[in-house]
């Protein structure tokens, strides 16, 4: 009984510290400017849903939102195939170059994005790939490869060999084995890395900041920043834009709670 009191005395104030700012933003997203400042902690007098309409339409959040969906999904899909193919080789075949390749891919985890910004910017400029979503996607893929390959290699090493051996006896090619056996059996690990990679692409602003200056191609995190810089005095719609930006990660988390947590724990190696 006494223990319970101590626990609640700790988790409730902490809970307030976490939910408070988010709740404040959520409530403000339905208010007008004066109400945000005159009554910051009360419920909105009237729920101004028009703030969301302003953010979605006039501030272009709908476009940024769709851009981010496209960018994040493309990143996830490319990574799933590219990293699972590489992981198949690293997990299943023993030859000299294998150990070298594993180490080579692993090194990428240590590289901070900031280190390569100048050369990447130079390259993107040289190739005329500014405002090109595919270039952005490939950069995200490059920076998530190490983590994805590591997680998938570990997972594939734990899969039982017998199915593959049977397939080889039946004369299956390596591609058939990958496509029909390895890929389907790796779905749990692929979904874990995919959620992690999705969130990483959704949240990143560093590469878009440098390579996307056309409003039509901005992803949502950058679009939000843009909105606050240009029309920072429209607080209601701005708060609505913040809520729109965090909705997708929130939904992803609520749907795939365990996958998100295991993905972050696996990503621990990366951070």
């Amino acid at each position, binding site marked *: 009984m006494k223990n319970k009191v101590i626990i609640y005395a700790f988790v409730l104030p902490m809970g307030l510290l976490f939910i408070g*700012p988010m709740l404040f*933003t959520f409530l403000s997203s339905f208010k007008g400017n004066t109400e945000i400042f005159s009554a910051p902690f009360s419920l909105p007098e009237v729920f101004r849903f028009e703030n969301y309409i302003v953010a979605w339409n006039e501030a272009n959040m709908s476009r940024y939102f769709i851009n981010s969906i496209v960018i994040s999904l493309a990143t996830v899909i490319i990574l799933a195939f590219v990293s699972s193919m590489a992981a198949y080789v690293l997990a299943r075949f023993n030859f000299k170059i294998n150990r070298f390749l594993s180490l080579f891919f692993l090194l990428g985890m240590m590289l*901070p994005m900031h280190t390569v910004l100048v*050369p990447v910017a*130079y390259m993107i400029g040289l190739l005329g790939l500014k405002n090109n979503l595919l270039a952005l996607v490939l950069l995200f*893929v490059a920076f998530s490869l190490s983590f994805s390959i590591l997680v998938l290699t570990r997972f594939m090493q734990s899969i039982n060999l017998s199915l593959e051996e049977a397939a080889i006896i039946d004369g299956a090619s390596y591609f058939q084995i990958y496509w029909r056996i390895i890929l389907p059996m790796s779905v749990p690990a692929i979904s874990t890395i995919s959620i992690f990679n999705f969130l990483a692409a959704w949240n990143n*602003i560093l590469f878009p900041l440098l390579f996307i200056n056309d409003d039509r191609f901005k992803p949502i995190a950058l679009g939000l920043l843009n909105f606050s810089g240009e029309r920072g005095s429209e607080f209601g719609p*701005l708060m609505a834009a913040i809520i729109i930006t965090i909705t997708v990660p*929130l939904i992803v988390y609520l749907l795939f709670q365990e996958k998100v947590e295991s993905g972050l*724990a696996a990503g621990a190696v990366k951070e």
Partner: protein
Amino acid sequence: MIIKSRKEKSKILLFTLPALFIYIVFLVIPMIGALYFSVMNWNGIRGVPLEYVGLDNYINVFTDKSFLLSLKNMFNMVFFSVLFHTPIALLLAVAINSKFKGYRLFKVVYFVPTIFPLTAIGLLWYFIFMPNGSLNSFLELIGLSELVTGWLINPSTAMGTIIFVNIWAGIGYYMVILLAGLTTIPKEIYEAADIDGATPSKKFFHITIPMLKPIITLCILMDIIGTIKVFDLIFVMTEGGPNGLTNLPTTLMYYEAFRYDNYGVGSAIGIIILVIALVLTIGSESIMNRKGRS
């Protein structure tokens, strides 16, 4: 699985080609490029030739007061993150693990900030900390109006405010990792301690903490390396201001290269960030391994 012939070997290596291509083009070559640019003087305009300056960029960086300040900010941020992240996260994880009524909801509440874009987190807190923001309204409401200040504009509070937001945004992450660790501790140990009449605090210090030691060390390691890479929060909340007081090496790198067009200096800072990250990763990993063996 055994590779029979050279032909087979080259066939299977084809599977690594797409990954290798993207990895080399967008990561390995730029890495080499960063070393190259860091010994060059260049204003970023194509057609203007690059000038070789040797280690001048590095010397400039290390004699530059604003860089030294950014390093100090970084070490402060790392220090306070380590001081608060893991201990608070551990207490929350232990509380959640006791499965009190409503623990699932609390877990979500503590955790979700870690998966939101830091741009959104930064803006959210920006509006709380701005001079006519809700924190100051709240302070006036409870009669602490002498504490009212422009939290992110005032030089004496700006960095501390950012450090606070960084701590807030990360706690849930470490909580989830520690929570995963807690579930691996066998219940029998606690039951045996109960029979011996151990108090909850005794159990916490003599069972929980020693059993979690490897994961606690991992959290601290991740915290250090993660904090070095913080960028978005500063960029969104203060842009390094007031007067460059809240810069980190990451933001300084960005401003040097892409705002002031000193691409060589920016690259040099980028390399320094890499070296710091490498040294701290390898250093703390070797400490961890030594502890693990003994």
